[in-house]
């Protein structure tokens, strides 16, 4: 068991462990991409990666810096239009897992990628939904990977881009941050596991509301040597 690893590396490992072999994943760039590739090299060799850009079953020969990188197209199994991606794959119910990120997430699992402050005159204009709104609504499970602070974990987000536990919906299956791991119970976020070395106090200090703590609070398993080797190698051709 490794002891020298970053919070990001642990987040990637924890996300990867949630993926099951054979699942179809709608994947973005960055940590989710690393998590998917990690899972494929370990317990989920049959994971199918679909990029929002339309590349299905990509096997990139370099680390893509954008979801539209040409390396995702060359040698993929299929390239399809945005109409097909959203109508047939996502709305069609073929996506098992979607990854979401956000500038803010609240106690109900709502995500904000639109504005900080007022919509008409924002303090910070963020990029907007992209596919996030429909991924939240239409993927069978969603995972959120986000850095945690009081600002990024407010009680209510400034703008609901991607709905969480509203309207009787279950919300994200899991939120993974640099401090811990969260699930939703009866429509509200609950801390279920801590990063080794992190404390409930730290979590409370970095959450904008009185966060619920699971009775059987655990620690996230640290990355194995194997996991770290793969993440750090980023050797996409092996």
């Amino acid at each position, binding site marked *: 068991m490794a002891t020298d690893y970053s919070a990001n590396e642990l987040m990637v490992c924890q996300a990867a462990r949630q993926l099951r072999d054979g699942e179809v994943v709608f994947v973005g*760039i960055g940590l989710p991409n690393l998590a998917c590739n990690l899972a494929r090299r370990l317990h989920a060799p049959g994971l199918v990666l679909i990029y*929002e*850009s*339309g*590349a299905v079953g990509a096997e990139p020969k370099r680390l893509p*810096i*954008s*979801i*539209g*990188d*040409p390396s995702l*197209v*060359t040698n993929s199994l299929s*390239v*399809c*239009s*945005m*109409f097909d991606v*959203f*109508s047939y794959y*996502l*709305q069609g119910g073929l996506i098992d897992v979607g990854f979401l990120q956000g500038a803010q997430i609240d106690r109900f699992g*709502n995500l904000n990628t*639109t504005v900080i402050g007022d*919509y008409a*005159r*924002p*303090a*910070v*204009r*963020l*990029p*907007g*939904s*992209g*596919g*996030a*709104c*429909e991924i939240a*609504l*239409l993927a069978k499970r969603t995972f959120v990977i986000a850095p945690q602070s009081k600002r990024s974990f407010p009680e209510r987000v400034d*703008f*609901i*881009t*991607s*709905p*969480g536990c*509203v*309207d009787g*919906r279950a919300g994200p299956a899991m939120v993974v941050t640099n401090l811990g791991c969260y699930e939703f119970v009866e429509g509200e976020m609950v801390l279920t596991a801590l990063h080794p070395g992190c404390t409930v106090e730290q979590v409370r200090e970095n959450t904008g509301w009185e966060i619920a703590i699971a009775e059987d609070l655990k620690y996230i398993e640290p990355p194995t040597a194997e996991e770290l080797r793969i993440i750090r190698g980023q050797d996409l051709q092996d």
Partner: protein
Amino acid sequence: MSKLMTMKQAIRRFVQDGDTIVIEGFTHLICFAAGHEIIRQRRRELTVCRLTPDLIYDQLIGAGCVRRLIFSWAGNPGAGPLHALRRAVEHDIPHSIELEEYSHFGMVARLTAGAAKLPFYPLRDYRGSDLPRVNPRIKTVTCPFTGEELAAVPALNPDTAIIHVQRADENGNAHVWGLLGVQKEAAFASRQVIIVAEEIVPESVIRADPNRTLIPGLVVDAVVREPFGCHPSYAQGYYDRDNDFYVRWREISQDPGKFNSYLDEWVYGVRDRAEYVARMGAACERLKAGDQYCEPVNYGY
């Protein structure tokens, strides 16, 4: 009857002040050459549409061409925010712009409805999101069979679509491969279409692989030959994405001085794309695509 013309002619003829235009491309095949010509011709009060307004829309906005932006994700893909857009929205610099905002699926649905001349398109989306609260064009429709309430968005029918392709004939029949985005829908939805091609090929090349034709010449008004016209975006099989430039843009766009210097040097300071490419020099070579040809298929019978 050839539709070939220069970019200068095509923009002069098919992009007017106040028009609604779309320069589509999902990371791939984004026609920066057309955006630069629009800036050079100092078009004003444009409504610009696109799922992913990126660097070229940031430049159009910073250059003062844009009145309204219809979009779903405005960022520098893989490299951060668009600072010219942020200056306009947060501080009215160079002037305020209006935002009309959807999600990707909503934009795809709008253009699909536009292409199909349907007044609306139904989709399962937006329930619980704040987007319909700030955008009255997101409504609902009730299924006449199940009674289910779905989201509905109206058709989007721009005046002009500008679509970059790998190869086209003189009539605008265009072969595209790699990421297809929403280009076909944008072309069919628009009143006028400018095809910008890396290569103009004989009609026989198009006819040799009709399944590769994404856009038929019958909807096309102008055809422009513009090699390297997507840089810093890419054209699969021709040149790679200039990821370094995307990263550098963050710094350029953040500083109004650097932003203006960039425009002075690379947009106002060149006559056309050919001069831009000449100024790029050896950098173009670095981005040139390697060879990875598909196996041909047999159309015989």
